[in-house]
């Protein structure tokens, strides 16, 4: 017979006000196996815990039932206390007589009756509790960073500095991301490249960081601490080890029709190209769609002119598989396609541009060497109109329902950049609301108005009519309720941000979820903002939602801290309440594998002795590291071959029986 101790907590008047503690005690004493019953005002206090510890030792208790608050509140506390008194912590059972009893009932008599039933059930279950010992799994001391923009670079540098190896996977030929395309940053107007490129170099030269550029995630397997990722390195057609980055090939390439992705199509690039001068690695890539050698079989000029013999037309994609302890997703964002916004003739007229194109047009390294000129005729504009919220806060099928967050600030920045260079240009900004929370943000935007004389107009633009060499902007000033027409030379559209188109696909590979807008979902919007629901996978930057650079960098360091914390543990402790298979009973139908949401059950062939003979048989096998103890498999198994440790079928049935008695 077990020696069970029952400890009834008053929780001040929280429980004692509605439940008759004495009656509960008396009832508990009568339950077979119960040898010691005590009560105290606050069982979770040090005094209360000592009460339990002493009773375990003095009364030689082998099971403990605590009638108190929800196990979510103090189960861990009491388990720890039991452990320190030498009792296996999983022999402790909680009867929740607060949240599920005293808090939800008024009638003391009935509440007391219910509390007694709950205690009886907990004792019935505790009687069948067994010692459980959590297992341990190792942690691969290496992190993977998906995405090589500022978020990925920052996270990788932080993790590398902590002494762990980090691999960065970047889809494009160079790291740098959107920040590399940006001219100046708000709210300080300092040069984006000046602060980013040193970090890019740091990342590429750090002994702990390894870059996989022009690469993508092919497949992800495993679990926290032990991910196994297959990386597809796309064929660059250039041998990175041999290439010196001299640039002769890109100069000589006869095919110069492709639009430069980096310059947002405002400049042409060759079929063999380096995305931008500060690219890391400084190794060209051949765009096989554009390359004459690949299209027609003729040419091959780059191969002939390359002094180091680095051109390899026959290169193929290669797959690399690597183990990681932690993964940080930092895949960033894009701007929405403006094809459907015909009222702003973006696709029709070269002088209607997006904000990202504006960045390239004002950048000293851009196609106009920083001179702000009209793409249509190369002349200096006299009037420039900015339209904010193009597709943001838009409930129609063309746009996104959310606020893109960064546009108000970068539009103010753009307006100031124009005014700084050319004070005579008239600048208009159409806005719905100006949203500038952030350190020194509102002051920044107000400076655009007050010091630079940018004309902010609360209202929207209805349509832009190209008339002659002008863009006739029809707008409204909602504050004065006047419609207005501005003959502008350029129109800059603050296109909404959006999640990467392939976010869902990557999410599926990683088993992390995306929200309705395809941004990755954090585990908790306030308290776990950089974690995902999949242990060991973290989020950084705009892939989780629109974000500016300061916020992205802050979140990146936070994600790095989480990843470092995990890698630093070296070993992970399992929750021992996982499913187990009774191989004797298991028929190997594997219905459980289809049910398991964590892919924790697989099949294995074992040998069993049957009537003196060795027989092979297929049975289910639970990976204890992956099992989350949800119990879905146990109810799927017809024969009851699966059972959840700590919540065995017979324990649950004993509880039910005890309540029904």
């Amino acid at each position, binding site marked *: 017979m077990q020696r069970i101790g029952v400890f009834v907590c008053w929780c001040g008047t929280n429980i004692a006000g509605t439940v008759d503690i004495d009656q509960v005690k008396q009832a508990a004493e009568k339950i077979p196996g119960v040898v010691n019953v005590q009560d105290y005002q606050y069982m979770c206090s040090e005094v209360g815990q000592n009460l339990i510890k002493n009773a375990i030792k003095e009364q030689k208790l082998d099971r403990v039932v605590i009638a108190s608050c929800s196990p979510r509140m103090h189960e861990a506390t009491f388990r720890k206390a039991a452990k320190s008194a030498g009792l296996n912590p999983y022999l402790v059972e909680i009867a929740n007589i607060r949240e599920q009893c005293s808090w939800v009932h008024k009638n003391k008599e009935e509440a007391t009756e219910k509390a007694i039933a709950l205690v009886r059930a907990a004792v019935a279950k505790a009687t069948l509790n067994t010692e459980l010992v959590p297992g341990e799994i190792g942690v691969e001391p290496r992190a993977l960073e998906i995405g090589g923009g500022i978020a990925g670079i920052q996270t990788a540098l932080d993790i590398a500095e902590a002494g762990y190896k980090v691999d960065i996977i970047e889809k494009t030929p160079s790291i740098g991301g959107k920040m590399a395309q940006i001219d100046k940053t708000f709210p300080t107007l300092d040069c984006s490249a000046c602060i980013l490129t040193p970090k890019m170099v740091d990342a590429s030269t750090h002994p702990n960081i390894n870059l996989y550029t022009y690469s993508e995630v092919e497949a992800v397997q495993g679990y926290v601490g032990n991910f196994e990722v297959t990386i597809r390195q796309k064929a660059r057609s250039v041998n990175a080890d041999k290439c010196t980055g001299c640039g002769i090939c890109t100069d000589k390439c006869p095919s110069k029709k492709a639009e430069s992705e980096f310059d947002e199509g405002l400049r042409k690039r060759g079929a063999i190209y380096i995305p931008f001068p500060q690219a890391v690695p400084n190794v060209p890539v051949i765009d096989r769609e554009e390359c004459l050698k690949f299209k027609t079989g003729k040419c091959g000029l780059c191969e002939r002119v390359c002094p180091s013999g680095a051109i390899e037309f026959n290169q193929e994609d290669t797959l690399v598989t690597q183990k990681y302890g932690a993964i940080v997703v930092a895949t960033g964002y894009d701007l929405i396609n403006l094809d459907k*916004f*015909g009222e702003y*003739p973006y*696709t*029709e007229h070269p002088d209607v541009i997006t904000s990202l194109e504006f960045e390239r047009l004002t950048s000293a390294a851009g196609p106009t060497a920083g001179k702000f000129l009209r793409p249509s005729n190369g002349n200096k504009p006299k009037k420039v109109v900015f339209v904010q919220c193009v597709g943001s806060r838009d409930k129609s*099928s063309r746009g996104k329902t959310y606020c893109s967050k960064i546009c108000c600030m970068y539009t103010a920045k753009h307006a100031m950049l124009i005014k700084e260079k050319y004070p005579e240009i008239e600048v208009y900004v159409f806005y719905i609301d100006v949203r500038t929370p952030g350190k020194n943000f509102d002051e920044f935007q107000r400076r655009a108005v007050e010091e630079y004389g940018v004309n902010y107009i609360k209202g929207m633009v209805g349509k832009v*009519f190209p*008339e*002659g060499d002008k863009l006739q902007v029809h707008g409204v000033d909602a504050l004065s309720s006047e419609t207005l027409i501005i003959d502008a030379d350029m129109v800059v559209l603050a296109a909404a941000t959006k999640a990467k188109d392939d976010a869902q696909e990557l999410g599926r590979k990683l088993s992390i979820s995306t929200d309705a807008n395809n941004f990755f979902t954090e585990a908790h919007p306030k308290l776990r903002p950089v974690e995902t629901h999949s242990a060991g996978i973290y989020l950084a930057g705009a892939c989780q939602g629109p974000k500016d650079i300061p916020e992205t960098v802050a979140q990146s360091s936070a994600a790095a801290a989480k990843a470092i914390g995990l890698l630093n543990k070296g070993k992970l402790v399992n929750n021992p309440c996982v499913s187990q298979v009774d191989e004797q009973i298991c028929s190997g139908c594997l219905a459980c594998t289809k049910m398991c949401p964590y892919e924790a059950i697989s099949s294995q062939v074992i040998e069993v002795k049957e009537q003196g003979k060795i027989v092979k048989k297929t049975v289910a096998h639970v990976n204890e590291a992956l099992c989350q103890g949800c119990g879905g498999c146990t109810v799927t198994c017809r024969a009851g071959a699966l059972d959840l440790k700590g919540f065995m079928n017979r324990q649950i049935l004993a509880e039910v029986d005890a309540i029904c008695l």
Partner: protein
Amino acid sequence: MKFSYYPGCTLKTKAQELEKFALNSAAALGVELEEQKEWQCCGAVYPLAEDEIGTKLSSVRALAEAAQKNEKLITLCAACHHVIKRVNEDMKTKDDVKNKVNNYLQLAQDYQGEAEVIHYLEMLRDEIGFDKLAEKVTNPLTNRKIGAYYGCLLLRPAETMNFDDPENPSIIEEFIKALGATPVKYPYRTECCGGYLSLDNKELAQEMTDNIMKSALKNEVEELVTACPLCKYNLENKNGKIAISYFTELLAEALGVKE
């Protein structure tokens, strides 16, 4: 190619040319348009109120007849097309409207939006193809600079009409090109002509058409085509500089069937 054809009242009175040239051209193109026997006025304007059922009935009759014959329903007048297409969308998506209409009409078989209604221009684009049309042109309209005037009803609301880009359409320009003429795009080609305002608020309607004509003139349009009798009326009302015709007239001319 055979279609169920819905003409509408204006085509039988003030806009006979729109229909005449359309029918001649269809014959030349080998398209059979079978006029519905007992068609009624479409209602002229789509009933925007959610609770109006009566004014939707005649459109449903036309649609149900086409559905019963298993033919696409072809329209010519932009207004009729707008009304019938939107009513059809209601019958497809709004259970309340569908039930009430069917309760009222008591057709042999309930109508649930099965029919497809297309405009004559869509027939040219999607069923025949502008490249095929170009091959059939016997009398190319070379050296003519023609502007398309779309108006509102074919294009908007964009999701229901699903006709072309509502802000930057191209179907009529492509049509003009197929006939051998030079299409001229001018920015106001999708702005409203004033529509029925010309009945009660002539000044406003005039102001609206003026803006359109100015834009056309500025872009050196020599003649305008439209698919809507009311647009044509409004555009012609205070204008002498640019000839305005139905798109079917151009078509008949290019196909050599304009009598």
